[in-house]
């Protein structure tokens, strides 16, 4: 099956039916290993046992930005290449990205209270991630507000590309401004500063959560294709009844 074949929704559905069980199984296994490694990881000399929150906070924070990047590529697919599945991909990803962003914010807050002495600080990193969360909600509201999926897709694609400007702000906020949030310790020039005892469980969890996203995204895309099939059949039914 070539990439162009996937532009056909029926072929895409048949592919998802085959790969989803394998993806779900691989996700479950990786997350179980990740949770076990996280539970067994040693305490940090500064953070103590609270460092265990890192193993769920960081993958969710990475995915909050990764999902928006996927949506931005899909937005280009809608506006430039008019790929029939591009807006399906973007629409299906938004609620999942919103959930990851919400989890990044809340787990960060629960990590911040014992470490910083506060749940929330209006610093550049925290505020820019909150803006990302609000953009996800805005995008979901836009999809719901416009009846015609193709009109909604174009408006959502423009909003997504404008929102992508926030991604470098989130990433580099800890370098550009003086923030309470610590600077990058994994994805940085010069390599990770984390000890292997923390880095390995973190990477396993990151891969596990990424697979979780792929699995949920494919399943949500399948649902969106079926929803559009329902809509077109309902329109056919209405025109048959009117004739």
């Amino acid at each position, binding site marked *: 099956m070539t990439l162009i074949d996937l532009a056909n929704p029926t072929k895409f559905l048949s592919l998802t039916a085959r790969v989803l069980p394998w993806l779900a199984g691989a996700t479950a296994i990786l997350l179980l290993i990740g949770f076990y490694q996280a539970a067994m990881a040693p305490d940090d000399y500064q953070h*103590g046992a609270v460092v*265990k929150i890192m193993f769920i906070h960081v993958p969710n924070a990475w995915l909050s930005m990764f999902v928006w990047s996927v949506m931005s590529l899909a937005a280009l697919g809608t506006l430039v290449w008019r790929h029939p599945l591009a807006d399906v991909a973007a629409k299906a990803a938004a609620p999942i990205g919103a*959930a990851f962003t919400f*989890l990044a914010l809340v787990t960060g807050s*629960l990590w911040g209270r014992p470490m910083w002495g506060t749940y929330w600080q209006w610093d550049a990193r925290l505020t820019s991630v909150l803006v990302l969360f609000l953009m996800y909600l805005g995008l979901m509201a836009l999809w719901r507000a416009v009846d015609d999926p193709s009109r909604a897709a174009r408006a959502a694609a423009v909003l997504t590309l404008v929102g992508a400007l926030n991604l470098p702000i989130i990433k580099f906020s800890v370098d550009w401004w003086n923030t309470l949030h610590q600077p990058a310790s994994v994805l940085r020039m010069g390599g990770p500063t984390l000890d292997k005892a923390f880095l390995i469980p973190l990477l396993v969890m990151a891969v596990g959560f990424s697979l979780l996203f792929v699995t949920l995204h494919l399943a949500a895309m399948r*649902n969106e294709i*079926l*929803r559009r099939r*329902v809509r077109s059949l*309902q329109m056919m039914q209405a025109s048959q009844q009117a004739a």
Partner: protein
Amino acid sequence: MSLGPYASFIVTSYTLVAAIVLILIIWIAIDYRRQKERLRELEASGVTRRSGRQATDI
């Protein structure tokens, strides 16, 4: 495994992540069943796809 004086923060974080992921999975599964049910109803009412395939075909 001791979670120290801030155990409640750690347990709450992990519980919340598990709950939200579970809600996402259940929501997507329910949505799938709902769409399949609607397609079955449309098919039963006599509406067919232009390709001639069954509405619920994947």
